[in-house]
């Protein structure tokens, strides 16, 4: 990706001209291969867990997805700060793309978590600190996206969304801390004591590692594409208005 530099919007640099490029095509191919490898190791080659049985395989997707969701949130806050500070449209679109991809991975995290929880704990949902704060994270992201998708001028949408995006990570931290206190004052956090934190080795560790790589590649691919689509959409919106004005002027002149 050489054409996307951090430039102001009037610019020499035209930005992306299509939704994909040769680099992203290669990246997508590698991501597909990584998913295939993950499926092979996660579903076939790695053994079932002594405590969790076959359900442990869900974690090879679940844990990397949660990490990807957090990275997406950090991108959103970083992008929002840089937009407010330097008026960089590039970073504003990175923030938007980050939030959308983070929302997707938060949903994947929650769904896979519930599917894992049902056989392991016997219930889909417990009011554990991690689960609750992840659910709140999803709601905060949906709030950001609601503001970003308002039907208003780009400047209005971008600025208001950037304020919400700026506060995203601080909010997640405060919510997490409060939920943590709330649960631990009532009950001891025992849920993960024989789950994630227990020793993990051999093929299982390798499968988890493959999961991280596959999800990272998918994350990157989605992020780049979402960015490019958003960039093109803003471009079209602007040109559309200019073209319409020019058309009306031409009408007026001919009449």
């Amino acid at each position: 990706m050489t054409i996307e530099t951090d430039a102001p919007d009037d610019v020499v640099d035209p930005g992306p001209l299509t939704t994909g490029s040769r680099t992203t095509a290669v990246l997508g191919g590698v991501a597909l291969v990584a998913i295939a490898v993950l499926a092979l190791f996660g579903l076939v080659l790695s053994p079932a867990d002594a405590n969790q049985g076959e359900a442990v395989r869900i974690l090879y997707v679940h844990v990397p997805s949660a990490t990807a969701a957090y990275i997406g949130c950090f991108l959103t806050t970083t992008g929002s700060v840089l937009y407010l500070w330097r008026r960089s449209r590039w970073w504003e679109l990175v923030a938007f793309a980050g939030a959308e991809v983070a929302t997707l991975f938060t949903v994947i995290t929650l769904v896979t978590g519930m599917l894992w929880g049902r056989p392991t704990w016997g219930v889909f949902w417990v009011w554990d600190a991690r689960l609750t704060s992840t659910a709140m994270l999803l709601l905060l992201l949906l709030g950001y996206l609601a503001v970003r998708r308002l039907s208003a001028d780009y400047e209005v949408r971008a600025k208001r969304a950037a304020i919400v995006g700026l506060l995203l990570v601080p909010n997640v931290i405060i919510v997490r801390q409060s939920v943590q206190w709330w649960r631990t004052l009532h009950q001891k956090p025992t849920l993960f004591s024989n789950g994630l934190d227990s020793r993990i080795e051999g093929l299982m560790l390798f499968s988890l590692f493959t999961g991280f790589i596959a999800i990272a590649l998918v994350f990157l691919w989605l992020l780049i594409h979402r960015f490019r689509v958003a960039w093109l959409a803003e471009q079209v919106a602007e040109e559309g208005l200019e073209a319409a004005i020019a058309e009306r002027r031409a009408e007026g002149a001919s009449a």
Partner: protein
Amino acid sequence: MWADAWLVAVKDLRIEFRSRVALNQVLPFALLVLVLFAFALDPDRGLLEKATPGLYWVAVLFSALLALGRSFSVESADGVRDALRLSGLPPVALWLGKVLSVAIQLLVLEVVLGAGIIVLYGTSVTGWPLLLMTIVVATVAIATAGTLYGVVAAGLRVRETLLPLLVLPVLAPVLIGSTRAFEAALGGTPSEGWPWVGLMSVFAAVYVVAGALGFGPLMEET
């Protein structure tokens, strides 16, 4: 700056005093919520007593949404927003004024609701200092965060539906903290409630800073 903020707050409170929307509509709504909770959780089964702190703060949050919506809908009429920008008042003062007027309205609301739970739900208070401190800190937290997100949603057609989606998840820590502190103050051990007041103070401090910095750019826009 405080003098300017006070000017804005007095303006909002004067509008409120003359129109009496909060008094005649928001306050009755809050009391209605208390009565509805009593219908939903039969008072004779003891559920209501246990749930009182949570119900109180849920009622406050819902009413606060109405008060916040009102605080920004008075701005959208007659070009008040533009007039405020032309007034030369610093944005921080505008924001603080908004926070003050919302906080004062919320305090009145909370006192009435507090009387409501004592009279209607038969609640007894064991820790007055904790109770009062919780009310003050939670009010500042709700008013600062609510006002900041209120201006994000201000002037948009989807304002009424957008504001709850933005504010309620953000205020979740305040709901948790104020409810736990109230549990401690209403029949519990008051010393257990003070860490929650601390958490809400941190929250309020974050939003005072964020609001002071964020309000300027939001007011500049066309």
